[in-house]
């Protein structure tokens, strides 16, 4: 391969790494727990959904080495099916969210089998095209409501007890879902499966020669990433109380790439930080319209040219440097 691979980063002393991870996690955990006191809780809930989405995406690129440019299809289908399940089938919140995630799982299997056959740029272009096909399907399918989307999704009561119409309650529920997803990703990365994935990412021919069925591993990572993205989309449908074409549009795929790139591809906390920055920018600068798009483009360019490790990546490199 020619030069530095995307998502590359080196691990050093394991005990330091563990302490660093615990410290960083504690900081982020505290920040999120206290957030509703300082900001509009509804915005905080949306933030958590996108942080989940970015983490799911990062699983594939950072640890699987596969850049998907069509991840919006999983996020969006999760969103649509959850909204539909809650509004039309009358399922309670927990089951609606599970429905959304399960749909994305199925979709992940289908698209994964097609896309995994190619790598690198081909893989990116194929995922983009498949996502676009799904977008047009959603545009026409009656159940999505087309341009109008699915509106006024009821939040209901979580487990029949907690009224999610209270924005703070909704926030902590979204936080719980986020923690579960984050915890699962953490487990995957540090498991034997995660190690094999890393090996495949760094040198696939060698992994094959060692006897691993690399296609199977890559497909598994793809499906996991898709399911978690669907979970994020489903939660977002409950938070925002709608599902629309924006959720399956390619610009959504581009945004999650941006969040992960800015935060730091292949780092554990990078996607969360990246999501925080990008979603906050969108929310607070919404009045400025197209400037948000232009700024996102500039961030992309700057990150690729001069800031490839991303925010968290740079912080980690600095911390590791200081240890010496």
């Amino acid at each position, binding site marked *: 391969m020619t030069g530095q691979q995307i998502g590359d980063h080196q691990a050093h002393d394991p005990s330091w790494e563990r302490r660093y991870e615990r410290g960083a996690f504690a900081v982020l955990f505290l920040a999120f727990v206290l957030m509703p006191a300082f900001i509009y809780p509804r915005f905080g809930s949306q933030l958590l959904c996108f942080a989940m989405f970015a983490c799911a995406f990062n699983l594939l690129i950072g640890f699987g080495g596969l850049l998907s440019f069509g991840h919006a299809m999983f996020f969006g289908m999760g969103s649509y099916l959850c909204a539909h399940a809650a509004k039309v089938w009358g399922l309670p919140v927990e089951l609606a969210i599970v429905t959304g995630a399960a749909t994305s799982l199925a979709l992940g299997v289908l698209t994964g089998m097609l896309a995994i056959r190619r790598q690198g740029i081909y893989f990116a272009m194929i995922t983009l095209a498949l996502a676009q096909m799904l977008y047009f*399907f959603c545009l026409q399918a009656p159940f999505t409501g087309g341009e109008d989307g699915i509106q006024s999704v009821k939040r209901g009561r979580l487990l029949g007890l907690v009224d999610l119409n209270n924005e703070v309650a909704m926030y902590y529920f979204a936080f719980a879902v986020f923690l579960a997803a984050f915890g699962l990703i953490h487990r995957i990365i540090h498991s034997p499966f995660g190690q094999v994935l890393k090996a495949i990412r760094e040198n696939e021919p060698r992994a094959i020669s060692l006897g691993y069925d690399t296609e199977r591993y890559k497909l598994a990572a793809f499906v996991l990433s898709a399911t978690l993205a669907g979970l994020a989309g489903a939660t977002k449908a409950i938070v925002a109380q709608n599902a629309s074409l924006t959720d399956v549009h390619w610009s959504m795929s581009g945004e999650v790439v941006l969040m992960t790139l800015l935060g730091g591809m292949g780092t554990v906390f990078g996607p969360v930080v990246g999501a925080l920055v990008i979603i906050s920018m969108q929310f607070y600068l919404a009045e400025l319209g197209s400037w948000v798009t*232009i700024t*996102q483009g500039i961030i992309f360019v700057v990150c690729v040219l001069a800031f490839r490790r991303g925010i968290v990546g740079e912080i980690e490199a600095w911390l590791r440097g200081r240890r010496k």
Partner: protein
Amino acid sequence: MNTQALFGQLLIGLINGSFYALLSLGLAVIFGLLNIINFTHGAQYMVGAFVAYFLLNKAGLGYWWALLITPFIVGAVGVVIERLMLSRLYKLDHLYGLLLTFGLALIFEGAFHHQFGSAGLPYSIPESLQGVQNLGFMYLPNYRAWVIVASLAICITTWFVIERTKLGAYLRAATENPTLVQAFGVNVPRMITLTYGAGVGLAALAGVFAAPIYQVSPQMGSSLIIVVFAVVVIGGMGSIMGSIVTGFGLGVIEGLTKYFYPQASSTVIFVIMAIVLMIRPQGLFGQR
């Protein structure tokens, strides 16, 4: 079977196909020779249309001038992009090129959207090409007939230059073994820069063709670029003939689908891409 309606849709399909072919040609040239995925291609097509609009409304230069000047103006911008930014990425994973050009596309589209909104600006058909031909089964506007003929000519000329001339041979050799070709005294980096500029110029030219038909709007490139990606994947990345044939062919297939089963017309190209990937992953004309 209503042959009138069928031929009408086929002809519209050929027109759309001309744009698919022209744009995928530019993409294939850039990828095949430079190994760069130029996501900015759609935005450069859009900028081409806008430059034509400005040339007309600010400088009083009409369509024919625009056809001549626009590719050079936008191509020059492409050269600057390549020199300043893309060239730094050649040593890295190709995906970074994709991400950079994606970011550039966002900047272009955002800037134009900020300035001009998204409703579309009018650009009238040049006088010499106005009017219609009554073909019996439909009225074919002269301008659209011109688009088909002109794109075909440009595609064939480009193919000829790359596959059959000395310049093209140098370009192809430089892709496969740049150090060797450089050793023979050919200035490879300059060739790469100019090739990128030429590919971008092709996109801008397509934009000028599009202005009178599709109206000039900031999003005109973004929906098109993804279809063009599918075309390139089907045709075989890097195959010039593949892009031309597939571009026109898919336009016609889209037209047929509009007649027989309109609901599928926007997805048929992607479905074909999925099928091609299953049976022949390197594309119809690709090598591997």
